[in-house]
Structures are given as structure tokens and as C-alpha cells.
């Protein structure tokens, strides 16, 4: 007499392939997942509460540590939200430099995503190759900002300082050398037959569910929705450069990886155009905006981070400190899809599906 019984398996919070401190309890029938219960909050640092006791300027370093692989993008979203709240104008040159650095950081972030995606299927080489190019981007950042991972380079009304001498040429060299490397990743991992077999048709997401959940970024674009805030709600210089919004139709793990790869090519294209037509002028507004005192109102501003719509909702009460700061984090929303996505899949594919959502737990838990 054989009895049948469901099996519960716990994954995380200390697990090599959950991309941070994430716990998911899986209910298994044989090897198939029939239920999942995600648990987050292991990195909840209370940034929203801390920011209520800091001046607007002092909140800026905290935003670096939210989505720590895309610190420039966080700075950008926060700085632009405050500028919108307080009505601060930014010079053309500062805007162009902001765009370049945000796009460079998008490449750095996608490199980590693709590299760790390789780790999950046992392809260690791609991880090493991706980090090799990432170091070059970090060198560029270090030259401009002084930091490797946390920058606080964007300030209200412009930038902390102008780019150092020779930076533009270095960035141009990087763009030239980077594109062949993207082909290399494509050959090594994305178009690799083994990788394709593992990831095609896994974790399929359809368009309506993705929109209904509020997913954004490559996760949403993999389902056939062409929604990219850089095109659909242009900010900075994005309406003056040529680039394509990358989207596919299948909505599986492979599509999401391919979109990230293709976005690196598009980002390089944007950077090249801007480096060639970098406007001259000052990078900081006339009066140094050290203390920002906005009027009593609220504003919401969102940018397209590598993970999707990253928004800051700020409420001001007319004092030096924000009355309330809400971070609309894309990774948090995308991760809420995990319960739906892993149902019906094999347990060995669960790390792949989590990895394809590209969660960063500083941002998920805030």
C-alpha cells in the first residue's frame, strides 16, 4: 500500500541562489511545485522612517543603499522627485551627464543579472566575464564620483562636480570595446543550446497578469507590452536620443534574459550619441541647493530603473525634512509575481525563475 503525501521544502533565507535574503516555502508533489509562500523583510531597514528625520540632502546617501547595484538610478529618481517638488531647474550638460551615468549603471546592473543567471545553470565562466566588464564601468564611476558602489553624485540642481579630464574619451573607448563582449555573452550563454533548453518555456507570464500585478521593466516587456518610461514618459535627454524599446512575446525566463542583453546594446547606443554631443556649460545650478525647502505639497516621480518603474512619492510640510517618503520599488512588485510563476514548475527551475525577476533585496525590503 503506497500513501501519497505533499512535501514541504524551505528555501532561504540563507540560500545561494535567492539573490539575497529571501525565503520561499515550496509545497511539492514529487518534483512539481504546487504551492509557494514567499517571505520577505529580512533586510527591512526602515529607510522610509529614517528619511522622515533627515533633511532632503541627508536622505540622498540612503537611496544609494536601496538598489545597490543601480545606485545611480536611485539617486536619479530621488533627486528628480525632489527637483519636481521644489521646482529646481537643471542645466543641459548636467542632464546629459546624468543620462550617460544612469545608462552606464543600467549596463552594470544587467551584467550582474546575466552573470548570476549563468551561475544558476552552472555556467561559471559567464559570471567571470560579466564582472570583468563591470569593473571597467566601476573604474569610470570611480574616476567621476570617487565611489565604486555608492556614489551620491547627483545633487539637487545638478551634479556634485564636472566630469574629470579625459573621462569622455575613456567612456567612448569603453563603448567601442564593450559591444563585442555583448556578442560574447550571447554566444556563451543566451544562445547556448543547453541554456535555451533549460529556460525556454519556463516561468511563463502572460500580458494581462503582468499588468494586473503592476510588473514593470524587462519582466513586463517580456510579455509583449512595450512599456518603458524612457519612451512613454520621457525625462532627462531620452526624447533627444535614438533607441528602441526591447520587447518580446513569450514571457519566459529566456526572453527576460535576452531583453536584458539587448538593452545593454541599446544603452551603449544612447551613451555613444550623448558622448558625441555633450553640451557645454555649468553642471550645478547658480545657487548651490544645499538646503531644499519645498512648498507644502506632494509629488510623485518615476524613472525606468533596470528593474522597472522606480518612483518616489514625497510629501512636504514646508520644513527641511520630508514629511513622508514612499519608495515605489519595481523589484518588490515584480517579486510578488513569484507565487504565480513557480506554480506548476519543477523545483530545480525555481532559482532560475527567481533570478529572472532580478530582485535586489535592498529595494524589495527597503
Amino acid at each position, binding site marked *: 500500500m503506497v500513501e501519497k503525501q505533499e512535501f514541504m521544502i524551505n528555501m532561504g533565507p540563507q540560500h545561494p541562489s535567492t539573490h539575497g535574503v529571501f525565503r520561499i516555502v515550496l509545497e511539492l508533489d514529487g518534483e512539481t511545485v504546487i504551492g509557494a509562500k514567499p517571505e520577505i*523583510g529580512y*533586510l527591512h531597514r526602515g529607510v522610509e522612517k529614517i528619511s522622515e528625520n533627515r533633511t532632503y540632502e541627508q536622505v540622498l546617501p540612503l537611496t544609494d*543603499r536601496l538598489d545597490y547595484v543601480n545606485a545611480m538610478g536611485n539617486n536619479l529618481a530621488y533627486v528628480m522627485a525632489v527637483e519636481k517638488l521644489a521646482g529646481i531647474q537643471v542645466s543641459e550638460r548636467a542632464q546629459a551627464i546624468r543620462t550617460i551615468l544612469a545608462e552606464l549603471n543600467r549596463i552594470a546592473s544587467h551584467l550582474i543579472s546575466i552573470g548570476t543567471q549563468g551561475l544558476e545553470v552552472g555556467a561559471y565562466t559567464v559570471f567571470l566575464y560579466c564582472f*570583468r566588464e563591470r569593473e571597467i564601468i566601476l573604474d569610470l564611476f570611480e574616476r567621476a564620483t570617487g565611489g565604486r558602489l555608492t556614489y551620491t553624485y547627483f545633487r539637487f540642481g545638478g551634479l556634485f562636480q564636472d566630469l574629470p579630464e579625459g573621462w569622455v574619451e575613456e567612456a567612448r573607448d569603453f563603448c567601442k570595446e564593450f559591444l563585442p563582449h555583448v556578442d560574447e555573452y550571447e554566444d556563451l550563454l543566451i544562445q547556448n543550446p543547453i541554456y535555451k533548453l533549460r529556460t525556454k518555456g519556463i516561468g511563463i507570464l502572460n500580458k494581462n497578469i503582468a499588468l494586473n500585478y503592476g510588473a514593470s521593466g524587462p519582466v513586463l516587456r517580456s510579455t509583449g507590452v512595450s512599456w518603458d518610461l524612457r519612451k512613454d514618459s520621457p525625462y532627462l535627454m531620452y526624447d533627444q536620443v535614438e533607441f528602441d524599446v526591447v520587447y518580446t512575446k513569450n514571457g519566459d525566463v529566456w526572453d527576460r534574459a535576452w531583453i536584458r542583453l539587448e538593452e545593454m546594446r541599446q544603452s551603449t547606443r544612447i551613451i555613444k550619441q550623448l558622448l558625441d554631443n555633450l553640451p557645454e556649460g555649468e553642471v550645478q545650478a547658480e545657487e548651490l541647493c544645499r538646503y531644499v525647502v519645498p512648498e507644502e505639497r506632494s509629488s510623485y516621480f518615476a524613472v525606468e530603473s533596470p528593474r522597472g518603474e522606480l518612483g518616489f512619492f514625497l510629501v512636504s510640510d514646508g520644513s527641511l525634512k520630508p514629511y513622508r517618503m514612499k519608495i515605489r520599488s519595481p523589484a518588490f512588485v515584480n517579486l510578488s509575481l513569484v507565487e504565480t510563476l513557480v506554480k506548476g514548475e519543477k523545483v530545480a527551475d525555481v532559482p532560475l525563475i527567481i533570478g529572472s525577476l532580478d530582485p535586489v533585496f535592498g529595494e524589495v525590503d527597503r
Partner: protein
Amino acid sequence: MGLKDAQKGPVMPAIHLVKLEKLFDWGRKNSIWPLPWALACCGIEMMATYASRFDLDRFGILGGFPSPRQCDAIVIAGTVTKKIVPVIKRLYQQMPEPKYIIAMGNCANSGGIFYYDSYNVVKGVDTVIPVDVYIPGCPPRPEALVEGFLKLQEKILGESAAEK
């Protein structure tokens, strides 16, 4: 330099006489298997240290051993919150002796930038488990992590596993 010249110099002993313990310690020093625990931002710098440019493997430090039962050090890389504390304690208890802890980054050292006003951040991982090496920085550079490991190696060489 030929054989004849070598004979002229001071006589080098071909055999080293040491205690067996010392040999063990030397071996332990050169084969640290840390449990990489990427909690937050410092985890990314730790990954960078393992990867191409900095390459921790050349110090005998291997990456990718996520089970505490096979490890002899933990790198706590990132902010420790109240919710993760029971997990840290449990993993620490699962490790075999001798075991070492490296606290990487200001958050793991003291709470760092989240020290004031936060309701959920633990003010230093040393309030939970004993720490051997503190690495300051927010986040520390990969070179700093390498330096931290070298300091840990010094510590291992200076004490005996048998006494621990």
C-alpha cells in the same frame, strides 16, 4: 648560480622540524572556506572580490560553499536586521569549530548609516555572535576584504586549533 656557489653559502637545512599542530595551522591558514553571506550592498563587493579582477582564490579562499557545516568562517556582508538574527545564530551553531567571523562593512560592524532612527536594524553583528575581524567601509573596497582575510590568516597562524 651553480651547485658549487650554493655550497659556499650558509647551509640550508633540508628538513624543517616543527610541531604537527603548526603544520595543521599552516594548512588551515591557506585553505579558508568562508560561508559567503551576502545580506546587502557589501555582498555585491564580495562577489566582485571573488570574480575576475580581485580573485580571492589565489589566497586559498574558495567561494561558493553555502553550507555552514563545511565552512570555517562566515563573512557577514551587510545590514543585520532583527528578523535575520535567529537565522544567524542558528547558522553559527551549525558550524564546526574552529570558526571565525568577519564583519564586513559599517552596517555589520555597528549599524552604520542606519544606526540612528531605525527600528529594525541591529547595532552591530557582534551583539549576536563573536566577531574576529572587522572591516570598515560603506561598502569596503575589495582590497579591504582581501586585507581582512589576510588578517584572519595571521590570527589563525598565531593560535592553535588544538587549544580552541
